[in-house]
Every structure is written in C-alpha cells, then in structure tokens.
C-alpha cells in the first residue's frame, strides 16, 4: 500500500469574469512508504493545491487520492498524517505546550504518552523555554517550529509538509533537514513542497516538478544528479610527459604548475589513456555536473513554453 496514491487529480477554480483556472491537471503520483519526496514548483504551480486536496481542505474537481489507503477528505485519512500548512497559524492565545496537548488529544493519544511526547518534541524543536508563553508572542520561526512539532507529536507514518523551511533561519533549516533525515531513517514517508532545490538535493529520494498544474518531471534525485553529469575537470602536472598529446581537449585553466582540462563524459577514457601513454601525471579529477536548480529551471522553462 502506497503512503500517497494520487490518480488523475484535477482541480479547477473559478477565475475572474466566469473563467476557469486549471490549478491541477490530471496529476498522477505515488509515494511509497519510507520515501522522502520533494515537490518542487514555482509560485502558483499547484503545490499547495495538491496538498490541500490531500488534506481535504479543498475538493478535487476530478480524480482520486488516498492516504495510506484511505480516501482523502475522510477523517480516517487524517489520522495517519502529520500536516504542516504553508505559513502556519495556530490559536495564538494558547502556548506551544497547550497546543501540542490539544493536537495529541485530538489524535486520542494516551495521557502518559502525550506528556512524554510533548516534552520530547518541545525540546527537539528548541521550544522548551517558550513552552508556557502564549504563541501570540512567538517569532515567525518559532511558530514554524510549533507547526513541525504538532506534526510529530503523534509520530505518524506520513508527513505532509508545505514549505517546511519557510521563515526559518539557516540554523532552523539545518534542524528541519536533520529531522527529515531522521524520519527517513525511521522509515517514515515525507512529502514536502519547497522552492529551495538545495534542500531537496540533500534530503529527498525522489523529486517531482510541477509547473502550471502539470507534473513535468518525476525522477529520483540520484538519477537527476547522474544525468546531470556534463563531464570532468582533469588537472595534470606540467613539466612531466607530453602535454601536446592532449591538445584535443579544452583547457579551462593554466598556471605554472598545473593545467586543467574539461573532458566530456564520452572522451574521458580516451583522455586517461592518452595521459597514461604520454606519461602525463593526472593529479585531480572532478565531476562537473548541473545542479538540481539548473534541472528545475530547465523543467520550469520547458513547462512555461
């Protein structure tokens, strides 16, 4: 059973002057248990719409979706999820501790477990000192951390996080990445939307890119990274061997001691063979690859055109 199963999901909103806007177009997506999935897309691409459909906050126009086998929109489907909305807001007259206890009680957690989990989660998210203060006095980053804490309190098998890094400083972001990696280790499924490709590259198993309501790319991070290899930067030491034998390759940098060549993937074996044959000492080989951001931008440009 998939953690999330989306099939032919469509969502249309009423636009201005009786127009219709297709926010989601025939989306098919499966998230397997234990997977960390990054959902990328520019603003207005349909990321939050997908998530709101999954959480039953809006109704899809067509298609079906299930969470752990339960149809979305049902109370049962929400018992298995920890959900963080985009720019979360909570009853600000409550303290973080009171809110976590409220969430835990809604999930029908036993009292002893709830108390233990509340303390653990508050400490993990560095909210312990502020736990008794009403949330109306919290900074944006603190509210975001309360949002994460309330997804974790009942230790669900699936986490749906809408822009979890939003509003966090670099330390907060590092903490969230650490938490996601820890969840992955514990076999939990995480589905999160973001704009920040760097976050995806570091924590995700798979990535989906949505543009204008359509899923334009879906692949594992490993594949994307592998496909993105453009060639190698090879450094050789000057004053040794016959460097003229390598003149067919582009020199990217040169100084008194070293020369750096750009070697395309297809020419790598030939370069190494030539270097060996002509006694050229190779001192360094570095992979030159497109990063995930270039991949993302390429997909977005293609989707927009």
């Amino acid at each position, binding site marked *: 059973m998939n953690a999330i199963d989306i099939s032919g999901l469509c969502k249309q909103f009423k636009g201005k002057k009786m127009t219709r806007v297709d926010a989601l177009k025939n989306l098919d997506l499966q998230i397997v248990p234990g997977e960390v999935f990054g959902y990328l897309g520019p603003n207005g691409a349909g990321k939050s719409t997908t998530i709101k459909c999954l959480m*039953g*906050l*809006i109704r899809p126009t067509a298609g079906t979706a299930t969470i752990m086998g339960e149809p979305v929109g049902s109370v049962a489907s929400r018992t298995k999820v920890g959900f963080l*909305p985009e720019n979360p*807001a909570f009853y600000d*007259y*409550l303290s973080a501790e009171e809110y976590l206890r409220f*969430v835990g009680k809604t*999930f029908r957690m036993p009292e002893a477990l709830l108390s233990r989990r509340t303390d653990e989660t508050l400490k993990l998210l560095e909210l312990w000192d502020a736990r008794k203060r009403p949330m109306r006095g919290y900074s944006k980053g603190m509210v975001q951390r309360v949002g994460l804490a309330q997804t974790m309190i009942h230790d669900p098998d699936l986490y749906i996080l809408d822009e979890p890094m939003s509003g966090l400083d670099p330390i907060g972001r590092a903490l969230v990445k650490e938490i996601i990696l820890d969840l992955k280790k514990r076999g939990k499924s995480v589905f999160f939307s973001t704009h920040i490709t760097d976050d995806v590259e570091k924590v995700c198993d798979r990535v989906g890119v949505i543009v204008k309501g359509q899923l334009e790319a879906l692949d594992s991070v490993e594949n994307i990274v592998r496909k993105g290899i453009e060639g190698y930067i090879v450094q050789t030491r000057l004053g040794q061997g016959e460097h003229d034998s390598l003149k067919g390759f582009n020199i990217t940098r040169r100084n008194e001691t070293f020369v750096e060549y750009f070697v395309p993937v297809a020419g790598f074996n030939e370069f190494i063979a030539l270097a060996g044959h002509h006694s050229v000492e190779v001192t360094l080989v570095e992979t030159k690859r497109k990063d995930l951001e270039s991949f993302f931008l390429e997909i977005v440009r293609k989707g927009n055109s």
Partner: protein
Amino acid sequence: MLNIMAISLKGIFRDRIFQGIMGLAVLFLFIPSAASLSMRQVTELSITLSLSLISFIMLLLAVFLGATSIWKDIERRYTYSILSLPLSRTAYLLGRFLGIALFMLLTALFLGGVAMLAIKVASVLYPPARPVLWIAVLASILYGTLKYILLVAVSMLLATVSTSFFLPVFGTICTYLAGSITQQVYDYLHTPAAVKAISPIMKQAALFFYYLLPNLSAFDLKVNAIYALPLNASGLLMTALYFIVYTSVLLAAGAILLGRREMK
C-alpha cells in the same frame, strides 16, 4: 468535539473583548440605588434593570463571540491546521458552538447570581407590594440565555458562508431585531384591521418570514419576573422544544455549508 469545546472556552476567557464586555457587570452595583429613583416600584425596577443589563451583555457576547469564532478561524487561517486534524467539520462546528454555549450558560449563572443579589438588596431596602417570584426571575434568566444561544447558532450559520465580518455580525443583529417582533407582526396579521389593510401577498410574505425567522419573543419572561406572574409550564416546555429544534436545524445547515466550503 469536546477538545474543541475546551479550547474555545479557554480562548473566550483569554479574549480581551470578553473581558471588556464583562466589565459592564460593574453596573449591577448601581442597580439598587438607580431603582430607588422610582419611589414606588423599586424592586420591580431593580428586576427590570437587572434583567435588561443581563440581556444587553448576553446580546453583545452572542453577537461578537458567535459571529467572530468561525470567521476569525478562517480569516486567520487557523482552520488549515484545525481541519487537517482527524476531526470532522461538523465536530469542529459543534465544538465551537458548545464552547460558546457553555460559556454563555456560565456567564448567565454568574450574572444571574449578581442580579439576584442586587434584587434582594432592593427588596430588603424597599419591600415590594407582591413578593418577588424567584422562580420567575430564574426562568427569565434561563430562557433569555437560551435565546442568545440560539442567536449564537444564527451567527455561526452566517459565518460558515461569509468571507467577511459584516454578514455574521450585522446579520445576527438584524435577526435579533426581526426575531423580537415576528410574534407581534403575526398577532397583528390576525386582527380584523389587518385583514382589510394588508394585501394577501404581503400577508403570505410576512407569514413566510414569521416561520423562517426565530421567534425570540417566546423566550421573553421578563413580565412574569417583574410582576411575579405565575409561569405557564406547557408554554415553557414548548419554548424549550422550539429552542432545541430551531438550534439543531441551524447547526445542521451550518454543518452542511461548512462541509461544502473550500478552504482555499
């Protein structure tokens, strides 16, 4: 649902609007001395003033708490986090309603106690011609509370479809005003003078609104309390049943509308 009810109650107690409105309760202290100005009917006037002050405070609470609870949750995007918990929208609506209803009952209990104390002081200082019928005073406070709880249900129904503050607040105030006079309009329509003066279409329209709008005058037992008139048990029972049925219909309609609402 009980969980939502509990945090609703907590929220009201921590709300500054509530604290401001409850500040009006200080006025009870002045009731015995204000009532003494009437010279003859001091106790009757103190009952009138006490019940009217309770009524005014309860009206403010019903309008502001009822109209703003759901609306504020949607406006401030609290609903994204609350409605994504394993909780049905019906349970959320009922939890919010019950939280406010319980608060209204607690407030009525507190204000009723203070009012009875003020009336007692007035009746000891200026003994009335007819002894105070405490059961009628109590029934008047209780039925007044039911009236305002029903009004909370009206405001919540309006809030489930509204995108702004205006419809729930002003809609509730209009319903209160209209609901307080529907019985008088109905009685007038059945007088011989009205048969001649009102066209059949107008009469049908007035009857339609009579049945559609809540009949709030049925909850008004102030006259019984002030003049120590005996209560009509079957009338009280009918009003209580009317309250249950009408409030249930409003909440059911609210639950359906909230269930269909998209949290964009």
